[in-house]
């Protein structure tokens, strides 16, 4: 937030809210859709809680222009991402790159799911062998109604 305010001070008056592209869209819908997708994958470094698609900062505008030129020049998505990270580091990517320092992050969803399922099955396995009698009287709730 502080950087955003700083950017606002530096750039005089910067509109708050959504950035709206003033450049014309690509005539090729594939290129346009790549542009829309990639501009949402890159982080604005001045208004740091927004993508360059959404940010009104002048840097975001410049980066969008750069993105457009790279797409028009026929660069692949990977090449474009490399271009950006070569200059601004991994910070500029909202989708973390698969590197040695992020493998845990990317493996986590499947790892946690597996670990959770294994734990659940172990518990269920154990509980299946136990008698399912109700607990002693002084521990039972007189629920009266409702099955929930």
């Amino acid at each position, binding site marked *: 937030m502080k950087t955003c305010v700083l950017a606002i001070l530096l750039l005089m*008056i910067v509109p708050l809210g959504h950035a709206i592209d003033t450049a014309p869209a690509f005539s090729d819908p594939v290129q346009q859709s790549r542009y829309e997708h990639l501009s949402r994958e890159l982080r604005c470094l001045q208004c740091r809680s927004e993508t360059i698609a959404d940010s009104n900062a002048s840097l975001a505008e410049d980066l969008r222009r750069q993105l457009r030129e790279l797409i028009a020049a026929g660069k692949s998505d990977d090449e474009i991402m490399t271009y950006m990270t070569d200059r601004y580091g991994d910070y500029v990517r*909202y989708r973390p790159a698969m590197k040695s320092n992020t493998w845990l992050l990317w493996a*986590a969803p499947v790892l946690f799911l597996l670990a959770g399922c294994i734990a659940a099955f172990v518990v269920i396995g154990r509980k299946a062998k*136990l008698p399912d009698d109700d607990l002693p009287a002084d521990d039972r709730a007189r*629920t009266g109604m409702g099955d*929930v």
Partner: protein
Amino acid sequence: MTVELGHFALILAFCLTLPQAFFGLAGAAWRKPHWMALTKNAVVGHFVLTAISFACLVYAFYRNDFSVLYVASNSNSELPTMYRLAATWGAHEGSLLLWLLVQSIWTLAVAGFSRSIPEVVTSRVLGVLGLISAGFALFILTTSSPFERLWPAALDGRDLNPLLQDPGLIFHPPMQYTGYIGLSVPFAFAIAAMLEGKLDSVWARWVRPWTNVAWVFLTCGITLGSWWAYYELGWGGWWFWDAVENASFMPWLIATALIHSLAVTEKRGLFKSWTLLLAITAFSLSVLGTFLVRSGVVESVHAFASDPTRGLFILTFLTICSGSALALYAWRAPLFRSDTGFAPLSRESFLLMNNVLLVGATLLILLGTLYPLFLDALDLGRISVGPPYFSIAFLIPMLPMVMLLAPGMHAGWKRANFDRTKRTLGVLLAIAVVGAIVLGTVVYGWHSVMTIVGFTLAIWVGLAALVDPVSRLLKRQSLSASIVGMSVAHLGLALFMLGVATTESYRRETDISLSPGQTAELGGFQFTMTRLGDVAGPNYDAVESEIRITRDGKEVAVVHPQKRTYRVQKNPMTEAGIDSRWTRHLLVSMGAPLGDGAWSLRLQYKPMVQFIWFGAFTMAFGGLIAAFDRRYRVRVTADATQAATAAGVRTA
């Protein structure tokens, strides 16, 4: 003078939390009825003083007292009255005072509505809540007082951030806080159970309504926040996986798991230590959320303050509060093992899976939110983790959970017998698949397999949720609030999923430039700018355009987006023009003037987006219904008297 009175009241309010905590906990531990009675007096006194303190701050805003630093920083004489009053919680210091006030109200409610709970338990609960209040009051008094004076006084204030000048500010924070703080009640009950060394199904029955109500408020708070951001920012997004949004979502997920775990504990006396852990974690995540938002430790647009000193205080509070609770848990949890079981296919195992998947999702969101911090602290680089990660990571545990929901709802306790429900569920699944394919091909056009899966699950869950209440109604069987509440809540989830699947798959947007008289097209609608002119608001000047939306020649709507410049802070802000229908929203936002009367505009088409918030509010409504089930309100005097006599204490 009022402000000094408010400050003094706050000091006294803090002082009263100490006897509240002491008499509550010591009185219960040493079984002293007089001490336990004093606890309630302290609770009432603390509430009154906190309310006075808060009222003084509100009054300072009402009177435009710019000799108060906080008022001068967040208000302005031209600010409309309702925003002047709501600005009380518009920034860090005042919002903390609101937090304290809401905590005192919850504590008062617990003190007032616990006639069917043994006094020993109530006293402990109030004692723990007193410790929490003490911590926050101390925090405000030492680092974040809203009562600081500004001398010489400002002639006028710096005005409230224009983004906050909206009805959303009036409702979202109070509702959100009520949810966060409400989770301190099951937390306190958990501590009470661990201190006493006693946790049974009756305990679960006491805790469930409090947890439900807190969950309801939290659901509404988060939904309001999402809705507010959507129409206020005009960017058409409803969730950005920002650190602060995640900080509110994590306690919600754990609270949801807690609600379901409590059901098992109440019905079968199982999952006791797990329920304790969830109750501790839910409130801990609330405190963690406060820490993240106010310490500057993660980057967020929503962050109140980035003050390491304040951050250190909350971190210490979190360590003491959660640390002691978890230490107590490590000591006491082995006491609560039960030797009863259930079949692999049973309601218990479905709820176990539900919990595992919800907790898994929470851990993933926590990991994603904190991962940049982890790497930075270890000097392993600066990275960003944003929506592209979260949307995948969240779906991985949630998709299985939603798939298990329809059968899970119909599983019986101990040993589920699907013989009769199998066919119904199968038929409903078939209907869902057909409906999904129709929606995903004929109605909206093909998008992806995931879209069809999303539609199928939404429809299946929705229909399955209705089976039980409808069949009971038809057979003229009794319908408890619990059953109705559960069905409504799950139906709400289905509607939410329908909204998300539709909007995320089929939304369209385009940036164009228009001048008066020109027309643009999006999604079969024509947008014509008919007028462009200047308007003046109470504290802003704006350029307003009138956009006429037509379809097949017939007029559908006329919207008036504005580009505002607030006179004090001078930042331009865009106010989107939105045509809202249940089937779709159409948004028009103004960008910048391009010269010759032309303006850049963003047009958006969002199908079924309203169901996202409607579904979420329906979920909350379901939870509210369930909280008022008769069994929570019936005083089970036989039970209570027995237990109380055994403990040798007079029941309150």
